[in-house]
């Protein structure tokens, strides 16, 4: 098993790969599209004209994703800040575990949803955010909550959060766009005037469809089952109470309610898959299966029993 420093470095390198890959992808797509559309409309776009523009845009998006991915993720999840008075256990448990791990206290957010789940985000431990649903805070005891928060803090300490948040924003953007375009084509009408537009969207959709295995691969890169097992191990080494995390995972997996605010771009951030057997149709369903890479809870619980 890799030690924590190797894991950290690997995550930092992978984060850079995601950013570079994103920039190259956007530039390439714009180049192909501008050439194709130029040919279609019958004028010459002239070499790399649009690509410079695309590079600037994708550069800005990368910069924004690096610094604001946590805010973006929190906004699309509809999270609000947690205070000590209202969420005493959540607040104090996070505070205590931060003391125990020697990390700065993360910012705490709450999603108002009865499905129990939690995630961590932020580009480094100084800008870490831990977010829990009200369902999680209501249903778990303090000891169980400690297990879950310690799991999230381990993600923060391993720099999993940087990679995962970047992936959520950048790759998620591309994946959602491709998905949306594919669906648009399917429901588009056959109006004569829209024929041209439909052709463009079809080209875009095909490009994204061809690239989606690569996108899925990127997501795999970010999640990998080992990441969750390592965070579970980190949680136990911090709390020294595997029982807390075990019963928390059991409670979370027994709950059948899907988390409404999670989408496939943010799903991999959560401690347990937020979809809970929700199956989409067509390309959407196929996508969410690709994105469903959480290791089975039973396997994680077994690994935790072996530690205890």
């Amino acid at each position, binding site marked *: 098993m890799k030690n924590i420093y190797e894991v950290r470095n690997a995550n930092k390198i992978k984060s850079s790969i995601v950013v570079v890959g994103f920039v190259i992808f956007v530039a390439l797509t714009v180049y192909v599209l501008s050439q194709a559309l130029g040919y279609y409309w019958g004028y010459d776009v002239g070499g790399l004209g649009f690509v410079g523009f695309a590079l600037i845009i994708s550069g800005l998006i990368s910069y924004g994703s690096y610094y604001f991915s946590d805010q973006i993720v929190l906004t699309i999840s509809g999270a609000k800040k947690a205070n000590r008075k209202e969420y*005493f*256990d959540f607040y*104090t*448990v996070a*505070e*205590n*575990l931060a*003391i*125990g*791990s*020697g990390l700065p206290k993360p910012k705490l957010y709450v999603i108002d949803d009865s499905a129990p789940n939690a995630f961590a985000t932020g580009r480094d431990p100084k800008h870490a955010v831990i977010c829990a649903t009200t369902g999680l805070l209501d249903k778990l005891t*303090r000891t169980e909550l400690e297990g879950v928060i310690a799991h999230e803090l381990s993600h923060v300490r391993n720099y999993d959060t940087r990679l995962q948040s970047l992936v959520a924003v950048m790759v998620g953007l591309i994946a959602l766009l491709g998905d949306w375009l594919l669906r648009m084509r399917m429901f588009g009408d056959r109006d004569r005037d829209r024929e041209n537009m439909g052709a463009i969207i079809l080209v875009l959709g095909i490009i994204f469809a061809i690239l989606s295995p690569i996108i899925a691969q990127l997501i795999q890169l970010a999640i990998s089952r080992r990441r969750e097992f390592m965070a579970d191990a980190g949680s136990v080494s*911090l709390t*020294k109470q595997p029982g807390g995390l075990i019963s928390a995972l059991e409670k979370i997996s027994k709950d059948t309610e899907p988390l409404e605010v999670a989408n496939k771009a943010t799903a991999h951030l959560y401690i347990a898959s937020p979809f809970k057997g929700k199956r989409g149709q067509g390309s959407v369903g196929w996508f969410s299966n690709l994105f469903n890479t959480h290791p089975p809870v039973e396997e994680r619980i077994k690994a935790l029993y072996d530690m205890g």
Partner: protein
Amino acid sequence: MIIYVIIVLVVLVVWVISIYNFFVSSQTRIKASIQEIGNQLKRQSDLIPNLESSVKGYLSHEKGILQMLSDARKLISIGKDASAKIAELLPKLQVVVESNPELKGNTVVTNLMDELRDTADKVMYARRLLIDLTADFNVKRVTFPSSIIAGMFKFEEMKGLETSDTGVHLSVSELETKSPKINL
């Protein structure tokens, strides 16, 4: 040929520096974690007596009212006129009901218990950090190859949380194997 020797030397020097830096930064973090324990202990000793007295104050307030109520009830039950008692009680009761629509002794005590557990946890986790940091330091100090650097710069073993090597806390007695019963 000479270039390879230089590369190897540079790599070696970088490695020695990184290990040396690990040891000295760990020492600093260990010192800081000891201060953190002190910090949490101070918080505890500041907070707990204050919490205790405010909860006591609240409970005695509520207790007085309840005492009066039961006194009045007793008088009625033995057939005496309790109107004097009730007249005395009513204004006080009114104040309480106005400021607290319900008696909150229960929540006040629960909050106290939560704060007590949280404070104990904070001190425990502060100690945990010290234990973890010293364990990391000491493992690096004795394992090869970082032990060479530790030997070169004479890094001493860190003590961590000082616990006696002998005594009853190292053995489990027959009584301690049973779950404790709580009597309230």
